[in-house]
């Protein structure tokens, strides 16, 4: 677990410098989402080091026109915010002030105007109600997503979590490597492939090896952003598990759930 801890502390340094590799980002952000106090403290400490690095740049003063333009822009921003707020208040006051001191015709016109305003208000109310319902639905949906993300993030903190390095077998020369975080308690796993690229006409397939016999755990495909970070809700029981392996298959996979059809490109032994 100590090497695990060191790894996260090293990643703290990369994060404050903004140079985290994409392949580390998911795992580390998931870890941070679990509110690790040690990493939070390290981030603050190293963040100051990073800010100091800024002062190693040759000192220069910005031209004065930058400040002037910035402040002009800020004033314009303040003015536009102010106008929006005032506009919302002024209109109803104007409507009220006209309604009491005119004759019946004017009163009728005012009543008609009020009816229009009331109808407009009712319409606005309906629209707002609809927007509120939509927003509530969206909040519920996002809450469920956050819960799901939190649940996956907790995998990295599980006492039963194991990290399995997936080392290249030499069957592939693209620099492919990877790792798998496996939670023996929940049987969930996250697989991260480095230097993997989606190849037209082929797929990566993940295998669990027990007693020397492989069993397919499914295909590893990139997410919408092109990253090979794949979540497995059920990677099976740890009992008897010897290793995980990744094979390069034709598109769609091996077709045989107990034997890779293509070359095995990555293997990671599961420590006992």
């Amino acid at each position: 677990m100590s090497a695990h801890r060191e790894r996260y502390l090293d990643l703290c340094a990369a994060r404050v410098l903004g140079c985290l590799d994409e392949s580390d980002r998911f795992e580390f952000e998931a870890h941070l989402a679990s509110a690790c106090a040690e990493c939070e403290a390290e981030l603050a400490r190293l963040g100051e080091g990073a800010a100091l690095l800024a002062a190693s740049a040759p000192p220069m003063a910005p031209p004065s026109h930058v400040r002037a333009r910035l402040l002009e822009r800020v004033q314009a921003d303040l003015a536009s915010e102010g106008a929006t707020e005032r506009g919302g208040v002024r209109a109803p006051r104007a409507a009220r002030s006209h309604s009491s001191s005119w004759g019946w015709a004017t009163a009728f016109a005012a009543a008609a105007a009020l009816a229009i305003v009331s109808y407009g208000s009712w319409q606005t109310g309906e629209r707002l109600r609809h927007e509120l319902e939509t927003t509530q639905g969206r909040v519920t949906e996002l809450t469920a997503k956050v819960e799901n993300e939190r649940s996956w993030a907790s995998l990295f903190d599980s006492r039963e979590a194991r990290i399995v390095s997936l080392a290249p077998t030499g069957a592939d020369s693209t620099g492919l490597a990877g790792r798998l975080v496996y939670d023996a308690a929940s049987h969930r796993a996250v697989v991260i492939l480095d230097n993997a690229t989606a190849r037209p006409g082929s797929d990566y397939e993940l295998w669990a090896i027990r007693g020397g016999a492989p069993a397919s755990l499914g295909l590893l495909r990139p997410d919408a952003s092109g990253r090979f970070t794949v979540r497995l809700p059920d990677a099976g029981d740890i009992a008897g598990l010897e290793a995980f392996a990744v094979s390069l298959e034709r598109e769609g996979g091996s077709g045989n759930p107990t034997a890779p059809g293509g070359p095995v490109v990555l293997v990671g032994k599961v420590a006992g």
Partner: protein
Amino acid sequence: MHPMSESDRDIACITRIRAGDSGALAELYDRHGGLLYSVILKILGRAADAEDVLQEAWFQVWKQAASYDRSRGPVVAWLVTLARSRAIDRYRSAAARQRMEKAVEADPEVATLPGPAATAEQDQLHERVSTALESLTPEQRQVLQLAYFGGLSQSEVATRIGAPLGTVKSWTRQGLLKLRELLPQQEWA
């Protein structure tokens, strides 16, 4: 009563900016505008681009002061991170990336650029940080500069200098820790 430290004054400015006080933004700019400009200029190498990004960064400070979280470090660290991120974004989108990378290592363009003089405080801080950087190993110094000013990811740094990724990660953290140790907070905040 103790006089307010610069760090306390920065926090007070952030609070005022959140309330819409443009004078607080001007005050914060006067204190840290030079540092932010220097970082941006070092990354981008061109004064015109740097001025543009500087203004964008400060306008972001104006609009997003509420996102500053005191528990994550001093205001100046937040400002510098924000400015650097914007500069790196601009840098990555620029066609002349190769030319900029040279500037990171040698400063040829920046050194010859005419510009208003920095403040005495900025000069002193630069001296202290430069001296501290000299105390790092050349490898630690190189990985920090490539990552921070060059905008390279750790894998890219490893490829660039031909070192194993794990070693680069270790050099990065050790370098930052050493820098922090050599320049405790009161030296600059």
